[in-house]
């Protein structure tokens, strides 16, 4: 039996790196320190594996790769999408492939924190790494997110309860949850603020107004005294942070909500230290943004049909391209858009030749023309992943795998496309 220590979890943007994984005869038998979701990912990594397929027929990996290359070579306007659940070398290869095929290249952030990027491109952001929060924060605001269920160890490792250099734990912090409804996260906090659905922008604006000394009588279903109280608390803390999720990015207002939140935090820095951080979902969606940015200048929704990168969310983002039925082929890497995209987008995806590279059978792999199974990054192959705060960690290989890593599959496609 082998015990792997310091394992980095390849599930969510928390990228917990203190897991212990027990391996017996090449099989993972148990995990320690892992949250339930992570444990299940490790223990069931060998289940539901995809098989190499072309047109519903099981083929060799070589044949599937050859067919994928043919599809991309012959396409006029291909889409390459996904990237967030794989490591950064595979993401680098995806950029190369997009460049060679004149493709549109998008990652899952266009359907999660894309609005966060757009807002930051308007006004910047005041950010920090998670250790700053653990060591210093005395005020934590969870806004439109539910770490208790989506980032399960975030409160224990980074935000709520950990003892840091200047904080002994939960008793030294005041924690607020702002959301449209109570969730398990609301049970962990000192104050729950219920905001009316779609009114986050209003509440954020009211907080900014209160901060500037304007009389605020109430907004977004929140009484004036609560808003004034929260503004005073934010102003008066020594080190505060807002963690926000898709409740803010994907509700009415989208990037304008984030813009308001970023500006609120900016304003707060006139009074005290205050920061803000998006709760990134997939374990390496941050990395997808990083890699695309250092190679193209842009974090998502990039198009290469002119031979150089052009950025236009709304035009080159996957959902929009698919709903407008513009792309004539697609390669989906480490993502399952058929499970998340609007029906019109999925219909188009099913109607064009689609290549899926994924370790597992997914809704998307079921409608794909070509399926290429791959090794799971962080369990079956190594690589780099970027935590939600931008800290890069080395993913480990815990067990051997008969499958090729994503990066190698992409390299082989690139060779055949003519790289």
């Amino acid at each position, binding site marked *: 039996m082998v015990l792997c220590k310091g394992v980095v979890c390849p599930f969510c943007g928390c990228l917990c790196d203190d897991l212990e994984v027990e391996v017996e005869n090449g099989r993972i038998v148990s995990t320690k320190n892992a949250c339930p979701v992570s444990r299940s990912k490790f223990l069931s990594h060998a289940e539901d594996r995809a098989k190499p397929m072309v047109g519903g027929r099981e083929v060799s990996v070589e044949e599937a790769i050859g067919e994928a290359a043919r599809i991309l070579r012959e396409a006029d306007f291909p889409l390459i999408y996904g990237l967030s659940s794989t490591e950064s070398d595979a993401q680098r290869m995806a950029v190369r492939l997009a460049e060679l095929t004149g493709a549109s290249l998008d990652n899952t952030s266009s359907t999660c924190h894309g609005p966060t990027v757009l807002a930051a491109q308007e006004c910047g952001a005041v950010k920090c790494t998670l250790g700053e929060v653990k060591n210093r924060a005395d005020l934590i605001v969870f806004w439109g997110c539910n770490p208790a269920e989506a980032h399960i160890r975030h409160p224990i490792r980074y935000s709520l309860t950990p003892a840091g250099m200047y904080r002994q734990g939960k008793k030294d912090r005041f924690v607020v949850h702002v959301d449209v409804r109570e969730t398990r996260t609301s049970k962990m906090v000192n104050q729950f603020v219920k905001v009316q659905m779609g009114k986050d922008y209003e509440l954020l604006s009211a907080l900014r107004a209160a901060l500037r000394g304007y009389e605020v009588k109430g907004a977004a279903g929140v009484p004036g005294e609560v808003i004034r109280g929260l503004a005073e608390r934010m102003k008066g803390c020594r080190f505060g942070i807002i963690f926000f999720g898709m409740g803010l990015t994907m509700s009415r207002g989208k990037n304008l909500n984030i813009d308001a939140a970023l500006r609120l935090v900016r304003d707060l820095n006139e009074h005290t230290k205050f920061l803000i951080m998006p709760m990134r979902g997939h374990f390496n969606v941050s990395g997808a943004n990083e890699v695309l*940015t250092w190679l193209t200048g842009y974090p998502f929704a990039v198009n290469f049909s002119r031979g150089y990168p052009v950025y236009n969310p709304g035009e080159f983002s996957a959902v929009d391209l698919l709903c407008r039925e513009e792309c004539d082929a697609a390669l989906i890497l480490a993502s399952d858009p058929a499970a998340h995209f609007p029906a019109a987008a999925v219909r188009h995806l099913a109607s064009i030749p689609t290549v899926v590279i994924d370790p597992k059978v997914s809704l998307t792999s079921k409608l794909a023309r070509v399926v290429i199974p791959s090794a799971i990054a962080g369990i079956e192959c190594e690589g780099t992943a970027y935590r939600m705060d931008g800290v890069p960690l080395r993913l480990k290989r815990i067990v051997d795998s008969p499958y090729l890593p994503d990066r190698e599959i992409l390299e082989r496609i690139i060779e055949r496309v003519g790289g």
Partner: protein
Amino acid sequence: MIIKNGTVYDPLNGINGERMDLFIEGGRMVEEAKGEVIDASGLIVLPGGVDLHSHVAGSKVNLGRLMRPEDHRRDPVPRTEITRSGTGYTVPTTYVTGYRYAILGYTTVMEAAMPPLTARHVHEELNDIPMVDKGAFTMMGNNHFVMKYLKEGNWENLRNFVGWLLKATKGYAIKLVNPGGVENWKWGKNVEGLDDRVENYGVTPREIIRGLARVNEELGLPHPIHVHCNKLGVPGGFGTVIETVETVMAEKARIHVTHIQFNSYGGEDWATLSSAAPEVAKALNRFAGATCDLGQVIFGEATTMTGDGPWQHQLFKLTGNKWYNSDVEMEVGAGIVPYTFKPKSLVNAVQWTIGLEVALLVEDPWKLVLTTDHPNAGPFYRYPKVIEWLMSKKAREKTLSEIHRVAPSRSTLPSLDREYSLYEIAVVTRAAPARLLGLKRKGHLGVGADADVALYEFREDDIEGSFSRARYVIKDGEIVVKDGRVVKECWGRTFWVSPPGELPEDARQEFERHYTVSLENYPVESEYLPRSEVIPCR
């Protein structure tokens, strides 16, 4: 390969414009060789350029790219049969960075600010920069353990920790950025001078600078401590840089003051800003162990990005431009603010005069390196403009006539007649930075040197144009640029240092308590340095 009949400028070997042949074999300069002949008649031949302070890779650079789509869209770079696509302008993508350095004739580039915790990110990006050899300076001036051991007066632990951290991050030198000030910024504050206290630690910037300068010499690192001084960008703050130099000199150590222009401000506020370049240059002239690079302002677009969080916040408040802040636990901070240097702005015009003034008043060119602190005072591919200003009083007078009319009276620049020779240009862009970095095979063309060579067609009437597109660039013995175009993509090495030092025992426990990554996952693995070279300590 033979480079025939070129006019060679090789200051480290005392060669000043001699017509001669150079020989290359196996990627090195040799006594005699056969093979391809490059006709260099009418061309000047210089060692490949060495940039010892630039921001080209890592989390802060990438945030600068991310936040500025408007900056990239004016400067798209299409792919070719040989090269990858990308975008400029002030913060180019990694491939474009490599190509543009090469076209300029530069073959070695140092990333000047690597946060230890995100060192992997720096190395990932460095591995995607083609054409040049590279390295990165590890930021330490606000590191928890550095300040803790200084407070305790535990020199052995401090030395051990610094040695270990350089190895763990695969760094090249010790970098300090606003020492102590950035830790205070994590509570929204700063330090006001060298003897101000760092909150909770009780140490002062002076003690941090002195301590790291001493450790730097004890470890025998090839480069001096590389310091972004306190009180950067503060009118009237020039005294701090002089005091900093004096502090290090009293330790009998070396110091490299980076982007000194930003620290050479006289006056009392922005309205009365004046040049203090003469005072600062005088201090540099006085001490053999003190060197600097310019951070010369180029008029036009820039993206300011430094590890100096509080300064970037100040700049945000001054400009109202978008502002990124990025604090890293236990170690560092950073900020990014886009900025436009305007010739008709009095402040910007005075800033412009200061860099050139320092360059002209520091007597010994070996103490000076040409930089723009890319992309802070302007992008690196505008270096040829700086060369023109240094070489031609006429070019300076032309710009002086175009800037804010009051600015010339705030500076001694109009009175300075000095013009750099080609030999001196070769010193400040090649020989001096290579020597300062302790890279013995760089910055010269003597036997045994790396065959990194740049050939230019030099025209007196178009100095900027002459240096903007090299006629030939040879990297490790291969022609990689011809007539200002990349003809071959190549991959350089990453330089790092491996001094003695292990992580002290007491740091282990503290590390696990206060960081959010495990100690075992902290050091950068060898996978991130596929092509690297350890440069020996003295």
